[in-house]
C-alpha cells in the first residue's frame, strides 16, 4: 500500500474502531480519534517532507484496477497543487478533533463521522481518477450532514439539509459533466491526466457545456456567487470544529477541482468563461466583504469573510499565470489556517458567553489579553496584513490578475478596504472600549483551546514571514501547469 493510500485509510480504520467501542467509554473514543487523526497528520507530514519539490509531475502515484468495466481505476497521486492541501487537511482535522473534546453528547457518533469526513477530504485531494474523485467528493457530504444536524446550533436541521441538497445538486451536475468527458474520450477513461490531454481536443460547444456542469459543482463548494447562500447558514449552525473543517478544507475542494481539472482540460471553454469568472470573483470579493460588514453575529461575519477570501482565490485563478495561480493555491492554504483559527476563536468566546453578538461584548482585551492577542493577530492576517500569511497569497492573486484584468482588480481592492473596516469595527466593539462587566466572570482561553489554536497562529506567522516554506512546493508544479495550459 502506498503512502497516499495509507493516509486515506488511517482515519477510516479509526472510524471503524470507534464504531466498535461502546458509547459510554468516552475517554477511549476521544483517545482513538486523537491517535488516528494524529497518525494521519504524521503521515501527511511525512508526505510533505518526502515530496520532491523539483518534480513537477505526479508523485507517490498508485494505480490499481477497480472497475475495469468502465475503465475505472483506483488512482492516487499528489503534485505541488495538492500536497500542501493534504497536509492542511491532516492538520486541521486533528486540531478540530482536539478542540471538539468539549462535545458532550453522542461522542461516539461525532468522532465516527468526523474521521469519515477526513477520509473523504483527503481522498478528494489525492484522487487522480475522476470517478474516485467523485466518490470521495460525495463521501464528505453525509458526515457533514450529520455533524451539522446533530451537534449544530438552533437552526441546525435546516442548515444541514440545505447544505446537503445544495452541494448534492452541484455534484450530480458535475457527475453528468464527468460522464460526458468519459464518453468523449478515446479509449473511454476517467483518468484525470488522460482526460486533461484529450479534453482540449473537444469541440468548443461541448467544452463549454462540460465546463458549465463541472463549474456549478465546484462553484457551490467554493462558494461562488450566487451559489454561496448555504455557507453562512451552515457555518453558523455547525459546531466549532466542524465550521473549521468546512471553511478550512471543504471550500478548497471547489477551487482545487477547477485548478486541477477544469482549466487544464477545457482550455477553449476556460477562455470563453473567463470574463464571467473574473466578474464572479470580483463580486465574491466586494459583495462578500459588504455582506460581512452588515453582520452582528461574529461567526456569520467570519463566514461571509470566507466568501470574500475565496473571491481572492478565484481572482488569482483567473489570472492564468504563474503568479496568480501561486497566489490562489497559497490563498487556499492560508485561508484554511486563518479562517480555521478564527472559527476556533469565535468558538472559544461562544462556549463561554453563549452569544456571538458583536454588540454584546466590549473591552474584552483588558480582561482576556491572550485571547484578544490571538484574535487580533488572526484578524489582521485575515484582512491581509503583511508579515502574516494572508498577505502573500492575496497579494499574488491581485498581482497575477492585474496583468490581465487591471480595472477589475482595481475595483476588487475595495474588498480589502471593506474587510479591514468590518474586522476593525468588530475588534473595536468586542475588545476595545470600556469593559462590559457582564462578562467579568469569564475565564481566558484554556489549555485545550490553546493547543488547537496556537499551531495555526504560528503557521500564520511563519508562512507570512517565510512563504517559501509553502511556495517552494507549489511553484514548480504551477509553473508547469500554467505553461501547459498556455
Amino acid at each position: 500500500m502506498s503512502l497516499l493510500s495509507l493516509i486515506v485509510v488511517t482515519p477510516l480504520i479509526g472510524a471503524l474502531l470507534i464504531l466498535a467501542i461502546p458509547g459510554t467509554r468516552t475517554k477511549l473514543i476521544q483517545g482513538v480519534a486523537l491517535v488516528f487523526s494524529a497518525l494521519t497528520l504524521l503521515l501527511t507530514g511525512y508526505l510533505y517532507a518526502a515530496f520532491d519539490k523539483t518534480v513537477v509531475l505526479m508523485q507517490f502515484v498508485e494505480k490499481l484496477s477497480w472497475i475495469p468495466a468502465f475503465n475505472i481505476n483506483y488512482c492516487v497521486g499528489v503534485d505541488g497543487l495538492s500536497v500542501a492541501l493534504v497536509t492542511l487537511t491532516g492538520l486541521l482535522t486533528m486540531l478540530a478533533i482536539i478542540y471538539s473534546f468539549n462535545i458532550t453528547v453522542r461522542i461516539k457518533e461525532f468522532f465516527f463521522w468526523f474521521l469519515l469526513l477526513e477520509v473523504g477530504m483527503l481522498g478528494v485531494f489525492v484522487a487522480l481518477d475522476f470517478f474516485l474523485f467523485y466518490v470521495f467528493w460525495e463521501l464528505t457530504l453525509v458526515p457533514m450532514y450529520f455533524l451539522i444536524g446533530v451537534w449544530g446550533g438552533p437552526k441546525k436541521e435546516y442548515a444541514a439539509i440545505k447544505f446537503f441538497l445544495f452541494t448534492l445538486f452541484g455534484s450530480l451536475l458535475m457527475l453528468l459533466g464527468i460522464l460526458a468527458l468519459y464518453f468523449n474520450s478515446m479509449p473511454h477513461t476517467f483518468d484525470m491526466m488522460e482526460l486533461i490531454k484529450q479534453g482540449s481536443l473537444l469541440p468548443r460547444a461541448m467544452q463549454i457545456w462540460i465546463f458549465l456542469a463541472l463549474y456549478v459543482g465546484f462553484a457551490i463548494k467554493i462558494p461562488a456567487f450566487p451559489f454561496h447562500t448555504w455557507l453562512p447558514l451552515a457555518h453558523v449552525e455547525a459546531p466549532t470544529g466542524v465550521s473549521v473543517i468546512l471553511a478550512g478544507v471543504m471550500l478548497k475542494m471547489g477551487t482545487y477541482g477547477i485548478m486541477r481539472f477544469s482549466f487544464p482540460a477545457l482550455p477553449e471553454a476556460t477562455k470563453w468563461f473567463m470574463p464571467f469568472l473574473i466578474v464572479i470573483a470580483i463580486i465574491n470579493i466586494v459583495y462578500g466583504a459588504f455582506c460581512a460588514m452588515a453582520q452582528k453575529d461574529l461567526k456569520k461575519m467570519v463566514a461571509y469573510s470566507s466568501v470574500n477570501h475565496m473571491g481572492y482565490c478565484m481572482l488569482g485563478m483567473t489570472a492564468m499565470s504563474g503568479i496568480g495561480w501561486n497566489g490562489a493555491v497559497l490563498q487556499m492554504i492560508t485561508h484554511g489556517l486563518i479562517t480555521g483559527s478564527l472559527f476556533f476563536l469565535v468558538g472559544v468566546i461562544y462556549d463561554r458567553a453563549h452569544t456571538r453578538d458583536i454588540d454584546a461584548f466590549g473591552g474584552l482585551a483588558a480582561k482576556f489579553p491572550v485571547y484578544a492577542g490571538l484574535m487580533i493577530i488572526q484578524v489582521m492576517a485575515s484582512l491581509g496584513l503583511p508579515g502574516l500569511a494572508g498577505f502573500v497569497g492575496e497579494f499574488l492573486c491581485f498581482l497575477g490578475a492585474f496583468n490581465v484584468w487591471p480595472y477589475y482588480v482595481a475595483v476588487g481592492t475595495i474588498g480589502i478596504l471593506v474587510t479591514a473596516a468590518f474586522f476593525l469595527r468588530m475588534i473595536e466593539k468586542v475588545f476595545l472600549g470600556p469593559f462590559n462587566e457582564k462578562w467579568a466572570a469569564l475565564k481566558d482561553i484554556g489549555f485545550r483551546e490553546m493547543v488547537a489554536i496556537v499551531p495555526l497562529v504560528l503557521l500564520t506567522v511563519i508562512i507570512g514571514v517565510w512563504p517559501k516554506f509553502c511556495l517552494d512546493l507549489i511553484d514548480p508544479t504551477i509553473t508547469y501547469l500554467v505553461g501547459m495550459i498556455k
Partner: protein
Amino acid sequence: MLEYVYILPLLSFAVAGLILAFGRWLPLKGASAGILVAAWGFSQGLMLFVKAIQGTITLPYEMSIPWFSFGGNQATLGVYVDGLTIAMLIVVTAVSLLVQIYSTGYMHGDPRFKRFYCYLSLFTASMLGVTLTNNMMVFFMCWELVGVCSYLLIGFWFEKQSAAYAGKKAFITTKLGDLGFLVGLMVLFYATGTFEISKIQELAHAGMIPAAAAGAAGILMFLGAAGKSAQFPLFIWLPDAMEGPSPVSALIHAATMVAAGVYMVARLYAVYALSPIAMDTVAWTGAITAFMAASLALTCFDLKRVLAFSTVSQLGYMMMALGVGGFTAGMFHLTTHAYFKALLFLAAGSVIHAVHTNDMREMGGLRHKMPITYITFLLGTLALCGIPPFAGYFSKDEVLAAALARNPVLFAIGAMAAAMTAFYMARALVMTFHGKPKDAHKHDHAHESPAVMTGPLILLGAVSVVSGFVLTRHEMFEHLVNFEGALPFELHHVNHSAVALFSSIVAALSMSLGVWLYKARPDIPAACRETFSPIVNMLEKRYWLDAFFLKLVDIGDSLSRFMFSFDFNFLDQIAIDGWAWLTLKLSKIQGWLDDHVVDAALNATGTITMSAGRMARLAQTGLVQNYLLFVAIAVSIFAAIAFAG
C-alpha cells in the same frame, strides 16, 4: 559595517518578541532592551553617516537573499543603502531612542507598560524595514506594519472609546490610500518586471519605463503616501490620532511614520521624475495640505492637535518640495522637522503629564512651574516658525526657494502657510506657558517632569537649534542626499537671500502678532471668533472633510446592509429556497391530487361521467379526476398517438 546593517530591523523585531515574552523579568520591564537596541541602532546610523560624509564607504550598497519565487519571478529580502537611507535611518533611530527614554518616565506606572515597549520596538523594526529594504514588496509590508503599530499605539488606552475609535479611523483611512499604493505597485511591477528598488531606479534612469506607466504608478502610489503622510484629503486621521500617548505622537505621528510617505516619494523619485503630471500632483497636494492644515491649527484649542495640524502642514511642505523638484530640500525639511516636531510633542507631553489635560484654555502661566519644558518648547517653536538661526529656518527656506523656482503660486501658498504657522505657534506658546493660570487647581498641581523626560527634551532642543546650521555646512546634507536632475540645493538663479530674508521677516512679524494678540489683547481673537464665525465654523469642522468621510462610511454601511438583505431575502430565501418552496408547492399540488383522487379512489368512479356538465359539477366538488380516469385518458392518448403517427 554596512554588511551588518540588516541586523538592525531584525534585532528590533527580536526585541519586540523578547519584551512580549520575557519583559516582566527584564530591567524596567523590558524598556531597557528596547532602549539599548535603539541606542545601538543610533550609533550605527551615526557611524554610517560619518563614513558616508567622509566617503569611506561606497554607496549605494545593496545585498539580498532570495525570499520566495512565484511563477518565474523571484522576491528578495535585502537592504539597499544610499544617502537617503542613512538620513532616514538616523532620524528613525534617534527619535526612537529619545522617545523610548522619555517614555520610561511618561508611561511610568501604566499597567501595560511592557506592551507599550513591545509595540515601540515593533514599530521601530518596521520603520527600519521601510527605511532599509531593497524591495518595494517588503517596503509595502513594512509600510503596513507601521500602520498596524500606529493602530495599536493610538488605541493604546483602548478603554477610552475615543482612542479605540481613533485607532480604527487611522488604520482605515491609511488603508484607503494603501489601495492606491497596492494598485500602483502592480502597475510598477508590470512596467518594470521587478520589485527591486535599484533595478527600478536603473530602468527609470535609462528611460525604460513608459511615462504613462510611471505617471499612473506614481500617482497611485502617492495615494498611499497621502494616507500615511496625512496629505489632503486623507489627513483627517492624524488629529484624532492624538488620542495616543504623547511619546507615540512624537515618534510615529510627527517624526517617522508620517514621514514614510515623503520617504517613499523620495525613494522612487526616479519614477516620479519621469512624469510631470505625477510631480505636479505631488506638489499641489502638498501645497494645499500645507495651507489647509495650517489654517486648521489657527482655531484649535487642543495643544496636541495644534501640533498635529502643524505636522500635517509641514508634511505638505515636504511634499511640495519634492513635487517641485526640491529633492534635497524636501528631505532636509523632513530631517529637521523630525527633531523639532518630536521635541514639541514631547514637551507638550510633559505639559499634559503635569496638568492632565490637552486643552490650552485650561493651561497658562506654566513657564514658571516647568522652566525646562518651557525653554525647550520655545526652542522648538522658533525652529518650526523658521526664525534664524534655528533648524527650521534653513530647511523651510530651501523649500520656499525651490517652490519659487518652479512656480510662484506655490511659493505664495507656502509663504502664507509659513505666516500662519508662526502665528498659531505663538498662540499655542502664549496660551500654554504665559499669562495667568486659567485653572488654578491644575496649575497648582503642575510640576516639572523628571529627568528621564527632560533629558531628551534638552537633547532635542539642542539638535533643533544647531542641526540646520551644522548640516548645511560644506554642503554636507546635499552631498549625502541628492538626486541627479532635481533642483540643486542652493539655488543660484533665484535670489536665495531674498527668499530667506522674506520668509524670516514674515515669520517674525506673524509670530510677534500672535504673541501680542494673545498676551496683551486676548479680547481681539475672541472678537474675531465672533465676527468670522462662518470661517471659524468651517475650520472647526475641518472643511467638512470628516463629515464627507463619515458620509462615505455611512454609504458603505447602507450598501452592506442592502447587500446582506439582498443576499438573505432575495438570493437565499427567494432565488434558492424559492426553488425548494416551489418544489414543495408542486408536491402539495401533487399531494392534493392524490388526496382528492386517491382519496376518493374508486369513490369517484361512481360520479364521473363524460359529460361536460358532469365535469363542471365535479370541478365544483373538487373531485376532478380519479385514477382510473387517468388510465382511460392515457389509453385514449395512446390510441390518438397510434392513429396520428
